[in-house]
């Protein structure tokens, strides 16, 4: 039995090597590049690691690295604003998602089994349809001469300028991430034993009290999973702030993109990526622990 188990570990070999090369190792390159200087060259940074130089070459290479790029980040107000507003957008949107997603998941879990299956599929379907296309669909509604304002004008209300504002980013984030919040919540709510609520009612709880003291505490793992699943990628979101937020809104994902593609400042883009990564390490580890625990429980 033991020999059998040992060999099963070999299944990890191919994916392990693949992820090591294409996922883990590249982060070292990002970290290294964030310590390099910008240069007018292809690729646009210096120093470049020259393996033919041997140990001496490595020494000069490491001697040339410094924290200049990071110093530049902390002295430029734009980066600090982008950092703080990324956290703000992600945190507030996660809150809104919980407020919208929880009642939705709760109602889904209370439906009859057949309806539940259909609703679950309806919730998963947008997840399969292109993110970019769904954001694009929002533009058609939110823009100044868009469908929302046409509808408002029809009932005699003034035009709202939503596109290219912070409100548009919130709408976009909530819209795009709603299934990611609802699905983990639904998973815990659907499994809940209904006799618990009956027992609470028998003991004199009002329905709201029963919800607040039984259902909600039991659903907290789902709340945590949904919140992390939304918060982490939202901090680094690029498409939504770029297409809905206009040029004035700053978020880290957009900053990396602009530094890289527009300014061709690869060291700055890398340094911002490293800062973003360090910010997200704690939530990512929390998320991973929780998933591992769920996996153990499901076994």
């Amino acid at each position, binding site marked *: 039995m033991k020999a*059998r188990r040992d060999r*099963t*570990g070999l*299944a*990890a070999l*191919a994916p392990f090597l*693949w*992820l*090591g090369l*294409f*996922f883990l190792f590249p982060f070292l390159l*990002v970290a290294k590049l964030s310590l390099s200087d910008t240069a007018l060259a292809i690729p646009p940074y210096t120093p470049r690691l020259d393996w033919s130089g041997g140990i001496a070459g490595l020494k000069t290479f490491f001697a040339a690295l410094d924290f200049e790029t990071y110093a530049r980040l902390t002295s430029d107000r734009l980066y600090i604003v982008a950092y703080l507003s990324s956290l703000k957008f992600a945190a507030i949107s996660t809150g809104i998602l919980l407020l*919208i997603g929880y*009642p*939705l998941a709760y*109602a889904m879990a*209370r*439906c009859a089994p057949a309806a539940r*299956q259909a*609703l679950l599929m*309806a919730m998963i379907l947008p997840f*399969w*349809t*292109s*993110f*970019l*296309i*769904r954001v*694009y*669909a929002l*533009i058609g*509604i939110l*823009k100044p*001469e868009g*469908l929302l304002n046409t509808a408002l004008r029809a009932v005699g209300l003034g035009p709202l300028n939503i596109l290219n504002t912070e409100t548009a980013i919130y709408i976009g984030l909530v819209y795009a991430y*709603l299934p990611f919040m609802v699905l983990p919540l639904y998973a815990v709510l659907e499994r809940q034993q209904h006799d618990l609520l*009956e027992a609470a*009612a028998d003991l004199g709880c009002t*329905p709201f009290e029963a919800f607040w003291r039984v259902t909600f505490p039991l659903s907290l793992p789902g709340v945590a999973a949904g919140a*992390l699943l939304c918060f*982490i*990628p939202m*901090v*680094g979101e*690029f*498409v939504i702030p770029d*297409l809905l937020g206009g040029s004035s809104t700053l978020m880290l994902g957009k900053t990396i*993109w602009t530094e890289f593609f527009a300014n061709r400042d*690869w060291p700055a883009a*890398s340094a911002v*990526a490293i800062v*973003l990564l360090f910010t*997200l390490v704690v939530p*990512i580890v929390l*998320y*991973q622990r929780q998933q*591992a625990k769920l*996996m153990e429980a*499901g*076994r």
Partner: protein
Amino acid sequence: MKRGLTTFNIASLVIGFGFLYLPIVLLVIYSFNASRLVTVWGGFSTKWYASLFRNEQLLDAIWVTFRIGLISATIATVLGTFAAVALVRAGRFRGRTLFSGMIFAPLVMPEVILGLSLLLLFVSLGLPRGFWTVTVSHATVTMCYAAVVIQARLSAFDRQLEEAAQDLGCPPIKAFFAITLPNIAPAVAAAWMLAFTLSLDDLVIASFTSGPGSTTLPMRIYSQVRLGVSPEINAVSTLLIGLVATGVIAVYLFQMRKRREA
């Protein structure tokens, strides 16, 4: 307690699903709009579909995107199956924490970080960017989704069947292919479909890792959207949504029928 729905429950469902579906429904309707303006209904027309099929750039991008999706999803599913087997079956092997970390982290990691780091890898290896760099990048990210989907099914699968086969003298690898794999086949198929659609949708990672001649459909859509709304994009979006929706609903109905027969 009654399991009926309260007014509040019904309102939550209507508002939630309305919010999710309204933009998509409007997009589909307006793809048949004869007028170029988004808000003015100029009568029913399929002319944007016709002009879509004359748009060589867009057709090229669709073709590139499909090929990348097919190849990367296949790599991702194979690697993801191995990863799932290791996660569920191998117990506590060396480096397990790092391994499961590498599987779960890409699911939530912002795409800009993944795109940038992969690009730097290809640059430092001196690989020319193009079709294959995008394919490898997509396989890297989507294999983690595949692993999670397959892992869920595999951990629910009763191991005793496979062990019985092994006790009867079947080599472990043969037992896996003869017994376990057919049993987890629906999850493997679902994982492939998920990997394929994720690859089809990806803008950010493809933008970082693609080169000349390997512009994908989302990259084309993105640049068109930045220039202003183009009705052809409505048409191509509607076709994509239709394709995915048909696939997902077909799988759903198939499962429902199987369940009723069972």
